[in-house]
């Protein structure tokens, strides 16, 4: 095992503490000065089933999951057993071991719980171990944990074993456990971890594999954060104090973080009957002058199309979050995909005015969340943030200073009562809320309870005073004004740095991507360049209004480009071709939609096979779709 990076995979059943253990482990590595990145894989069930988390750690910045991994900690799935009959559900029992071998690198380490896992149930286990030069540690973690505490603490025992083999000091983990656990649970956990550590140190040859963990140092203090954390904190810093939602994976993460924190900040969170209500509540609160948001995932977002249109027509600022997962319908609830792009861009009837942003990294998720609120309130328009199950749950280190920003609770062009008095009114005192002459399309607004500001907001076409009006001239004037907002927003966004270029400026080839694939693509680009292929990447985080000029300039600077996205119908490539109206002949696609995000090697392989060598992809993990002209 190379000392460049440690990729530690902890596998077991849902409910066995895989997530919390891996989070602590990642944090300990981050605190020791390493860069970390986690990748989470879990089934849609509460307890049991195959789940794993990878923690990748390196002295250099890591932007993605790695290619495979080099350390497996296989815990028994305690929920795989049927307690009534003492029977097994098929081969569930062996899954933590059996399901994880394909991607384990040569020379890697396997630690498995011999108290619960039987390698004889794993096909060709011995042969594969020998073939791949794996180092196997069979340790009865279950008995070890049971003897000193509770069986469920075998994850802690596993961490003790990991530390013994890799040389990570136990103190680093202990410190975190002290922060996270009450005294009563802490004591046995520490004891179990130490016992496991000592046992391995005494009885096994830990020097056999080359498993020293890389060492590193950070220039500044780091924090471990997920995309969901970053989105929630961005919203809070922009003064969002009202959220309404309905739980749906993976949107629930943002909803939960907000709900747990808003009351302490004097805000309001509402869990309501459905997603139509959720978006409508956000509109109601925003109409009153409060910064509000809602959100969902694919199927729930489908219900929001109707209130979304209402926000557009009434020009009520609205922020909606869409956390994509594999579809159609309920699809694969816990697996990432980027296939709701067209859904978010085009849902709801009529000519649409909306903003769609797609952050690519955890750090960017914070900025994009803030930007979504700024645009929504400045331009009185719905703005949506789309991301996916990958970005929502992955943890990575970000400099703490990145979040050290000033709050902004500005609600945009909203008048005071003094200012309202000078505005045009109808004879009976109705304020002209929807005036035609706003240069950037934005009309000043009032909120209920203000003197002199009374108006009617309606989802029907309306005149400046808000009265329903189907006069053709009024219709055109209002529609033109609403459309003008998009040009102004596009100009604003051009200065935002939402387009991230990576790689040599004069590269021969390009890779175009959006959202959570950014880091993986960038890592692939680095490797391609190291291997002598001249390629650069552009990640587009601004999907509506689309940055036509910038993308065109990028594509004009290369011979050919590969569009990388996680869906089956090349939606982002389609959007790019539609917006540019050209370049279709030079864009081919690399797609993946099997429930797992790309690994860097798959992009390297896909690029090399299709662009450089004109060959065929092995296997069916990814798919290649040639350019329109081919």
């Amino acid at each position, binding site marked *: 095992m190379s000392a460049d990076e440690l990729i530690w995979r902890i596998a077991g059943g849902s409910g066995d503490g895989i997530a919390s253990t891996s989070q602590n482990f990642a944090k300990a590595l981050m605190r020791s000065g390493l860069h970390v990145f986690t990748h989470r894989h879990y089934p849609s069930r509460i307890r049991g089933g195959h789940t794993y988390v990878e923690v990748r750690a390196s002295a250099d910045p890591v932007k993605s999951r790695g290619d495979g991994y080099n350390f497996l900690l296989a815990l028994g799935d305690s929920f795989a057993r049927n307690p009534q009959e003492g029977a097994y559900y098929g081969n569930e029992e062996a899954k933590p071991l059996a399901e994880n071998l394909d991607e384990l690198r040569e020379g890697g380490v396997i630690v498995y719980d011999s108290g619960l896992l039987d390698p004889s149930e794993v096909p060709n286990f011995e042969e594969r171990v020998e073939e791949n030069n794996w180092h196997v540690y069979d340790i009865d973690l279950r008995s070890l944990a049971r003897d000193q505490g509770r069986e469920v603490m075998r994850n802690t025992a596993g961490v003790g074993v990991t530390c013994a083999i890799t040389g990570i000091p136990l103190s680093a983990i202990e410190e975190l456990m002290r922060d996270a656990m009450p005294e009563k649970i802490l004591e046995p956990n520490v004891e179990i971890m130490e016992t496991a550590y000592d046992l391995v140190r005494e009885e096994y040859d830990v020097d056999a594999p080359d498993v020293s963990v890389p060492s590193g140092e950070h220039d500044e203090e780091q*924090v471990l954060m997920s995309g969901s*954390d970053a989105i929630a*904190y961005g919203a*809070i*810093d922009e*003064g969002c104090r*009202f959220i*309404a939602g309905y739980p749906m994976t993976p949107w629930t993460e943002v909803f939960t973080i907000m709900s747990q*924190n808003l*009351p*302490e*900040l*004097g805000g*309001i*969170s*509402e869990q*309501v*009957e*459905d997603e*139509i*209500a*959720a978006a*409508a*509540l*956000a509109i*109601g*609160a925003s*109409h*009153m*002058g*409060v*910064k*509000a948001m809602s959100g969902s995932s694919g199927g729930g977002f489908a219900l929001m199309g*109707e*209130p979304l249109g*209402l926000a557009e027509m*009434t020009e009520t600022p609205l922020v909606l979050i869409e956390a994509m997962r594999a579809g159609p319908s309920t699809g694969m609830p816990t697996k990432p995909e980027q296939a709701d792009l067209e859904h978010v861009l085009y849902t709801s009837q009529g000519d649409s005015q909306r903003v769609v942003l797609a952050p690519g990294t955890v750090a960017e998720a914070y900025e994009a969340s803030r930007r979504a609120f700024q645009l929504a309130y400045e331009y009185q328009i719905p703005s949506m943030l789309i991301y996916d199950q990958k970005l929502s749950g992955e943890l990575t280190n970000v400099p*703490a200073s990145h*979040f*050290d*920003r000033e*709050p902004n*609770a500005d609600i945009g062009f909203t008048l*005071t*009562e003094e200012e309202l008095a000078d505005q045009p009114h109808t*004879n*009976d*005192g109705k304020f002209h809320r929807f005036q035609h002459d706003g240069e950037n399309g934005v009309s000043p607004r009032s909120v*209920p*309870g*203000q003197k002199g*500001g*009374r*108006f*009617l*907001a*309606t*989802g029907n076409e309306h005149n400046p005073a808000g*009265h*329903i009006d189907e006069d053709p001239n009024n219709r055109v004037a209002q529609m033109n004004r609403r459309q003008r907002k998009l040009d102004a927003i596009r100009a604003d966004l051009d200065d935002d740095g939402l387009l991230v270029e990576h790689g040599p400026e004069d590269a021969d080839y390009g890779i175009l991507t959006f959202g959570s694939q950014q880091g993986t693509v960038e890592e692939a680009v680095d490797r391609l360049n190291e291997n002598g292929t001249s390629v650069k990447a552009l990640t587009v985080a601004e999907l509506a209004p689309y940055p036509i000029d910038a993308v065109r300039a990028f594509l004009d600077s290369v011979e050919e480009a590969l569009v990388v996205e996680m869906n089956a119908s090349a939606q982002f490539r389609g959007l790019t071709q539609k917006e540019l109206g050209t370049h279709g002949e030079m864009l081919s696609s690399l797609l993946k939609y099997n429930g797992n995000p790309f690994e860097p090697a798959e992009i390297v392989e896909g690029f090399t096979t299709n662009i450089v060598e004109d060959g065929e992809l092995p296997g069916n993990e990814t798919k290649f779709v040639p350019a329109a002209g081919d």
Partner: protein
Amino acid sequence: MSAFSAIGEEREVDRNEYTPEIEPQPTWCPGCGDFGVLKSLKGALPEVGRTPEETLLVTGIGCSGKLNSYLDSYGFHTIHGRSLPVARAAKLANPGVEVVAAGGDGDGYGIGGNHFMHTARENHDMTYIVFNNEIFGLTKGQTSPTSPKGHKSKTQPHGSAKTPIRPLSLSLTSGASFVARTAAVNPNQAQRILKEAMEHDGFAHIDFLTQCPTWNKDAKQYVPYTDINESEDYDFDPTNRAEAQELMRETEDKLYEGEVLTGVYYRDDERPSYQQEKQQIGEMPEEPLAERYFDGDYEWERSYDQFIDKHK
């Protein structure tokens, strides 16, 4: 000067203030019951002491949805069935504003039925008027959730096989703390009930019978009305849930046969509103949330100060 000086303003309010000076010609048909709702609402709001600028009227879609074109307050004309969730949040965001929601029987009991049930359950402090004419009017006469069984329409040519919804019982069962029925042809009672509803702290649901002379010519079936709060035939205590339930059952069973009972069926003035409950458990600020955005001195919390440590 407060950012919301219209809220709590104490002055005499003239009902004409609610009439737009250049009144859009109401598009309701001659003889429509909706005129009765508009009239009694214009009468009740000044009685409650609410000015047009501290009142938000949220409507759905349909003939009823046009109410706020003819009532000159702050207004939000939403979409079919969605007036309640918009209204709920508006009230949470700024409890000082008088929030009245209105919609039709198709809008409120059909497409918005889910929201109705949950708003009643949560007991949001607001008034909800359902224009009940037992028909879809603006879409030209289809069977609605309150149309009687056997009702024939273009979309149900063989007569509806469905039992009509029981709005009063549904409301009570769902948890509304004020349930009443009135009728457009009873303007005095309607005005009294609207006033009581707006003064009530909690979800006040009024099933407002409105005749539709164009699409539901049988509207005359509603006459005669009996006011259960006034009539000597009914020794009735509206704070008694069981009695309310019994009366609702009675009238909802024979609504299509003759005597129609109207009045306040049920009121629970002890039960705290949702806003109060939420404040008690610490999930809603004491001061109206909306005010904070107009307070230049308010110090907004930063996530960096609040949460960053747990990620270190």
